[in-house]
């Protein structure tokens, strides 16, 4: 492979990874926007999304991939709702430390539950390896086409929902000011539930795409939570489009970064970017949405 296509392949891989990070980051930033806290269990929604698909594709269901996706995403959405109903709604008025530790607790519980049922080992969906296709000199598998296609669909869907529908309008109102939204007669409960479902489904889609492209293991949540967070920091917290750009940038930085440093540190690149942003623009967070 000549060096030009080598580098363009690297960029392409970066974009592919970035698409998935963008899906994670959009879900994370959405919950932040509406409820004003970082859902530490977001990584576990990613991981469980991927494992739900694994569940439906394996015994006793044995569904083919395309039929298994829908119930898997449905369950992921329900998992998001379950978090809201069982934990976050009862302690909505508690202080932030309480919320955060509870989210951490959920994350620990769900991560180990996955390990309990499926073991700690790395798994795949056991799909046949399909030959990739050459596309303007680049090598792409079907999964990777799917990543790009699905991400575009999700972003379009989120755009329509947020800026063209009443529900989206009420969610945006909520993220501006919860109390003001409530006294203006917006059904805040419904909007919050919708935010949870969307956030969880986006996480599930991202998790499934990632697992299709690589593999799945119970630790995939934590690593990706940090990346999703770095992506939201780049784009400005609570900003959906910022999360999209941030995700792509993190993906690119990781894939281009491993040309220069040991691949063992690939997962650390997002963290370094995060620290650099904080050093360069320390008040990016404090300035906005501080409470």
């Amino acid at each position, binding site marked *: 492979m000549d060096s030009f296509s080598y580098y363009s392949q690297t960029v392409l891989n970066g974009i592919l990874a970035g698409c998935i990070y963008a899906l994670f980051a959009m879900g994370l930033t959405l919950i932040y926007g509406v409820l004003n*806290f970082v859902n530490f269990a977001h990584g576990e929604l990613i991981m469980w999304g991927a494992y739900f698909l694994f569940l439906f594709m394996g015994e006793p269901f044995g569904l083919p991939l395309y039929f298994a996706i829908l119930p898997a995403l449905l369950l992921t959405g329900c998992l998001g709702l379950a978090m809201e109903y069982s934990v976050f709604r009862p302690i909505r008025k508690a202080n932030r430390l309480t919320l955060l530790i509870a989210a951490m*607790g959920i994350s620990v519980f769900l991560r180990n*539950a996955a390990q309990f049922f499926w*073991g700690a080992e790395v798994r795949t969906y056991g799909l046949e390896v399909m030959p990739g296709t050459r596309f303007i000199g680049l090598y792409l598998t079907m999964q990777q086409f799917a990543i790009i296609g699905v991400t575009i669909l999700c972003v379009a869907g989120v755009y329509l929902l947020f800026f063209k529908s009443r529900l989206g309008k009420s969610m945006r109102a909520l993220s501006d000011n919860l109390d003001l939204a409530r006294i203006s007669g917006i059904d805040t409960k419904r909007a919050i539930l919708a935010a949870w479902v969307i956030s969880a489904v986006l996480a599930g889609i991202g998790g499934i795409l990632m697992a299709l492209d690589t593999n799945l293991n119970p630790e995939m949540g934590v690593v990706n939570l940090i990346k999703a967070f770095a992506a939201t920091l780049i784009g400005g917290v609570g900003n959906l489009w910022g999360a999209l750009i941030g995700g792509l940038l993190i993906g690119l930085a990781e894939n281009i970064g491993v040309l220069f440093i040991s691949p063992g*540190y690939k997962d650390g690149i997002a963290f370094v970017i*995060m620290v650099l942003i904080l050093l360069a623009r320390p008040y990016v*967070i404090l300035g906005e949405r501080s409470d």
Partner: protein
Amino acid sequence: MDLLLHLCIVVAIYTVFALSLNVEVGYTGLFNFGHVAFFAIGAYTSALLTLAGVPFAWAFVAALFLAGLCGFLLSIPALKLQGDYFGIATLGFGEILRMIFNNEVWLTKGPMGLPGIPRPEFFGIVFDTLPLYLALSAGFALATFAILSFIILSPFGRALKAVRDDETAAEILGKNAYAFKIKSFVIGSVFAGLAGVLWAHYATFISPGDFTLTETILVLLIVVMGGKGTLTGPVVGAVTLIFFQESVRFLRLPPEWTRLLGPLQQMIFGLLLVILMVFRPEGIVREKGGARVD
């Protein structure tokens, strides 16, 4: 008898670890989710130095110093973040540090870990038996308790609580909240380093796998369950949870169960955190006085 001594030593080490986290989480309101990083820095520094032939006393000092220094360097960017973000930044730091231990094989032997860490030697006494090691770790636990209690009960400690309860009000009264948070974080890091040193020389073998998020969660649960922001809470939490955790380890269970036992135990810990937060966020020992701003 050895089992009981072992339990007491682990309790003593985790008491130090929990007390150090309590300074940050309990008294200053810093959501440190990467506390295990400083435990690991203490453990690795002391282990590497003593393995290289440096006397324990110097390795000990170096380990505490390095843990504090890393805490200081991390806190400069990270403490500019508010609550949740600080939590993620510390979580990320914990993960990246483990990555370094795994990858810098020339220094840490990577995932193989460091075997044969010598027992500590102070003033010519080698602490190589269980009762002696218990005396050593209990002594350090008591000293930590005394020093941290002194700090917390001093005006400095009251300022930390003021920063925790209402940062703006503390700033208006002339307290530099950022500086107080950094100091609190450094103190917490130093004592976490101490716990790490005690752990490394007790276990005599460490590997990056010992310093995962799981450890942070355990120590967080100890603090939260015992009662954050209280002097005795972390001690109560350490005794309860370590006895639970370590005694499960000594149950004679069929081998096919043990694979499930680890995750199951962690599930219980996670669930405990959630249940505590929903029903009794203050933990076993309640913080006295002072209106908490909730």
